[in-house]
């Protein structure tokens, strides 16, 4: 698949799920929908490369994945952290694959030790639910062709809401919020620029040797600041001698001075 710059991606789960188009040569944004998560993106890349899921060309896929992440500047932040975790996982697998194999180890044990194995298992497990989601989508589409009766008189006698515990909580929260409205206070915070964010992060990594990404993100006060923090982290990994380390799957990602 050779596509000229600017890059344009489309993919089709059911129609209209994700399409990433270039608005200008250097600014890309998500037009419709989004990848449902890092595993979804990974499956897309593997398919795009026409690679075998049981023998993932990890170096190529990792490069593609990181390139993609850089493009997704305007990505929703809650998702971004998970995408970064996956980036760290891929980098870790890639580096393990580069390690010379122990010549004394038996071939069979080697296969068991394939650093890609855990990821493949997760992808296969995930893909089952992705297919199940597609099945649900088809069912609900079919069901939308069936209609139940219109309102009749006796319905009005019962025109009340049927409540669940979730309703209790949301209703309670709304009441509390309604009261809090009266004592609302606006707190304005100064927005920090990307350059300052990068400077600050760089200084902290140099001073402490490492910085927890999660802790760094948690300090942010607004969605905007989070976006800036996320881009700053990507920039630092790209331009500085800093690497992403993850101690265990789903664990925190650490930015560490090399």
């Amino acid at each position, binding site marked *: 698949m050779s596509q000229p710059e600017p890059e344009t991606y489309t993919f089709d789960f059911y129609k209209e799920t994700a399409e990433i188009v270039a608005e200008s040569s250097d600014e890309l944004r998500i037009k419709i929908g989004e990848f449902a998560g890092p595993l979804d993106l990974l499956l897309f890349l593997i398919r795009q490369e026409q690679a075998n899921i049981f023998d993932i060309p990890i170096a190529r896929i990792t490069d593609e994945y990181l390139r993609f992440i850089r493009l997704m500047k305007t990505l929703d932040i809650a998702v971004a952290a998970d995408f970064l975790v996956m980036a760290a996982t891929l980098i870790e697998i890639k580096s393990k694959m580069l390690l010379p194999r122990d010549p004394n180890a038996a071939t069979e044990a080697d296969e068991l030790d394939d650093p890609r194995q855990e990821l493949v298992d997760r992808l296969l497990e995930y893909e089952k639910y992705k297919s199940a989601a597609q099945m649900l989508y088809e069912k609900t589409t079919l069901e939308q062709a069936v209609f139940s009766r*219109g309102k009749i008189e006796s319905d009005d006698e019962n025109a*009340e809401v049927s409540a669940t*515990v979730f309703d*209790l*909580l949301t209703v*309670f*929260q709304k009441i509390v919020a309604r*009261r809090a409205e009266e004592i609302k206070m606006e707190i304005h915070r100064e927005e920090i620029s990307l350059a300052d964010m990068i400077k600050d992060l760089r200084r902290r990594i140099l001073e402490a040797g490492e910085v927890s990404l999660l802790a760094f993100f948690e300090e942010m006060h607004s969605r905007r600041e989070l976006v800036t923090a996320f881009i700053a982290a990507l920039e630092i990994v790209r331009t500085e001698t800093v690497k992403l380390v993850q101690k265990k799957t789903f664990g925190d990602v650490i930015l560490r001075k090399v």
Partner: protein
Amino acid sequence: MSEAVEEALEDAPKPTRDLSELVAVVEALIFVADEPITTKLLADVLDEDKQAAEAAVEQLRQEYEARESGLQIRVIAGGWQIATRTEFHEEVRKFLRTRPSAKLSLAALETLAVIAYKQPVTVPEILEIRGVQSASAIKTLLDKRLIVAKGRKETVGRPMQYGTSKDFLIQFGLKDLTELPSIEDFEDLVS
């Protein structure tokens, strides 16, 4: 649908439905309508002549009569409607009375939410939180046995305190009160 397509459809010949098909689709439309539906509206929606629509409804009405069903097709307020037959009103009324009802008005639901999360709580305290009088909602909740009196509060006027009942736990599928979702459970979801 683009305008061009719509125009093309308007010029298109009338749909060719035979009577039985027309009767069936007329039945579906009367069934989903919230209010009695006129023959003219039926004809318009189906792109049929008014006479054809008229004939179809009449055919449908006769079929309902002939098969001695529990339902009837009737004219009311100038339109057609499906309704239960009068012979079965006793059973219908009995069903409507006994149907399970975990349903609450919004006022009752709000009051119940406050009582569930703040129990034991007095009427003045509920007023303080909701900002509106809750007397009739409290009566409804007591009638439905969702709340119970929990003794008096040792304060000025010794107001009665309320809390949720065992029936409340059963109706909301809770083992005990600790199973009520907390604000923390939904903090991420609601933000």
